[in-house]
């Protein structure tokens, strides 16, 4: 089922939770709502689910206005951040709940419900927990039971609110991969909320970056990562270094140092902010004029990449640089060493008004 939001506004008192949100989610898409806390992403999810009302605008399900459809009539599976499992029911009864409350005419028989629940438990690989109570499960198990419960009523849309937010790193990685596989197999239109950029980039077909109740950028993970529309998106999607500089033809003046900026052309000198990802630097021991002089403060080679923390000598600014293990082996950079930092590339530059 496709979902469309048209100019949706929602206020809590004076706080704008949703500010002119228009968005179309295609049938079978896996969409991530990404943003800092308070950016309106959970509110957006709840509006789609029919759990929250909105002040203005329209929500369309497959082109039909969903205004008069209550939450229970929308055919939406909602998985809450803290799972919201029914603690007085066994895992089995939790999953069967959605089927058990169906009106007599369409409710499956007890055997059918049993079969369905076992099938779902099988899907989330927790058959052996059927007779347990929620408080006897671990966080990751609860999360998967909450998912199975939401899937029991064959929802046309699956909405997940920070689904892996309160799990430990290992379980989170597993469930992330599981969700992606699950989606590739069943193609249920899925929206999930997250504040973890890595999660969004890894799992989603498309990412919606939100801030202050507004959509900042909508696009594929590749798109939003490499072509951010502004510095907010850029700094939200991973580490970034930023410099105040003066841009001239092909050069960025940082203090007295003129750095070469590949692929940059300006008509006239401009004051700007320069955003550089950690992997867009080049470190060298050999003196170059067009490079920032810096001292190595700390090197962390544990990982697939090597993180080098630098402090510039002129201005004392801190720079995070990432180099590959090969580069690290070749250069053998060590703590307290003096190095020269130049640019390979620039992620994003933003002009600022010259101070009068």
């Amino acid at each position: 089922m496709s979902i469309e939001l048209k100019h949706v506004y929602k206020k809590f008192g004076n706080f704008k939770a949703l500010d002119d949100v228009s968005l179309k989610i295609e049938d079978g898409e896996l969409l991530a709502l990404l943003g800092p806390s308070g950016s309106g992403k959970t509110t957006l999810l709840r509006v789609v689910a029919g759990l929250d009302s909105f002040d203005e605008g329209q929500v369309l399900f497959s082109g039909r206005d969903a205004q008069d459809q209550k939450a229970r009539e929308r055919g939406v599976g909602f998985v809450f951040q803290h799972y919201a499992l029914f603690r007085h029911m066994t895992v089995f009864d939790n999953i069967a709940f959605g089927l058990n409350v169906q009106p007599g005419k369409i409710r499956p028989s007890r055997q059918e419900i049993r079969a369905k629940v076992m099938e779902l438990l099988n899907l989330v690989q927790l058959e052996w927990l059927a007779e347990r109570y929620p408080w006897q499960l671990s966080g990751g198990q609860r999360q998967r039971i909450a998912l199975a419960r939401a899937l029991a009523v064959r929802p046309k849309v699956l909405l997940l609110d920070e689904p892996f937010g309160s799990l430990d790193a290992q379980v989170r990685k597993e469930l992330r991969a599981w969700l992606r596989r699950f989606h590739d197999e069943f193609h249920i239109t899925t929206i999930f909320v997250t504040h973890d950029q890595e999660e969004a980039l890894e799992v989603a077909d498309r990412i919606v970056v939100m801030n202050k109740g507004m959509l900042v950028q909508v696009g594929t993970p590749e798109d939003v990562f490499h072509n951010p529309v502004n510095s907010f998106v850029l700094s939200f999607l991973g580490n970034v270094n930023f410099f105040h500089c003066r841009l001239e033809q092909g050069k960025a003046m940082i203090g007295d140092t003129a750095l070469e900026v590949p692929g940059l052309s300006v008509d006239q000198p401009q004051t700007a902010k320069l955003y550089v990802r950690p992997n867009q630097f080049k470190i060298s021991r050999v003196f170059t004029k067009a490079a920032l002089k810096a001292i190595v403060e700390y090197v962390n080679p544990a990982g697939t990449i090597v993180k080098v923390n630098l402090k510039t000598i002129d201005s004392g600014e801190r720079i995070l640089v990432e180099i590959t293990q090969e580069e690290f082996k070749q250069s053998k950079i060590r703590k307290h060493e003096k190095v020269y930092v130049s640019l390979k590339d620039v992620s994003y530059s933003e002009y600022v008004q010259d101070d009068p």
Partner: protein
Amino acid sequence: MRMGMSRRFVQKSILPGFSLSLGFTIFYLSLIVLIPLSMVFFKASSMGAKDFLEVIMAPRTLAAYRLSFTTALLSAGINAVFGLIVAWVLVRYSFPGKRIMDALVDFPLALPTAVAGIALTELYTPTGWIGQCLSTVGVKAAFTPFGITIALTFIGLPFVVRTIQPVLEDMDPQIEEAAASLGANRWQVVSKIILPVIFPALLTGVTLAFARAIGEYGSVIFIAGNMPMKTEIVPLLIMTKLEQYDYTGATAIAIGMLVISFLLLAAANFFQWLMSKNLGKV
């Protein structure tokens, strides 16, 4: 041998103080509850079994037992329904005057029961504000079992409200939203999700209200009318015996009441334990 015993009974804990606090608890409960209670039995044991049975099986005593227990149960039942609604409204909604309403709930506890009794009687006599209205439809409240039930309902309300309130506050509204998004209608949410979770607390509250109602004296005697065989409650019968210096008779009646109350409370506790066994925290 001793070591083995203590290992089985006392779970090892890093925090000290178990034996001290257990000792204190036993001492305190004995001093405050057990010793006074056993005095009742001690006193009654001075009379023979035949005399004892004669007192508690007397028609007047039986009528008082019946009246006391039916009105107490009835008032506890009424409070179960309306106390639950009051607690629900106080927890789930915010409205002007909520704090005042919340404070009002405790009022029946703070008010001297005799004052409550006089006020209620004043209201429910056929010439009183409410009594007038009731008498036009042919209902007599004051000086009937109905009047007693009203008084007992009045004093029992805070127990039900105050025990359910924290449990309701603790309940995550998302649980209800989850049920609704799974297709449950409002009635199914209440009956399958909310009630099972708050039932143990509700039962505790109702039990407390019932226990209080059984022993209530002050607020009832004014509105009851105190006619033997008709509107005479057990505590009043005991008072009457005491005034006639029939101490053993009074304690015999008290024992009968104690035993029935104990059985009812034990049953309620057992049931509550059964219900809450699987209500772990999530």
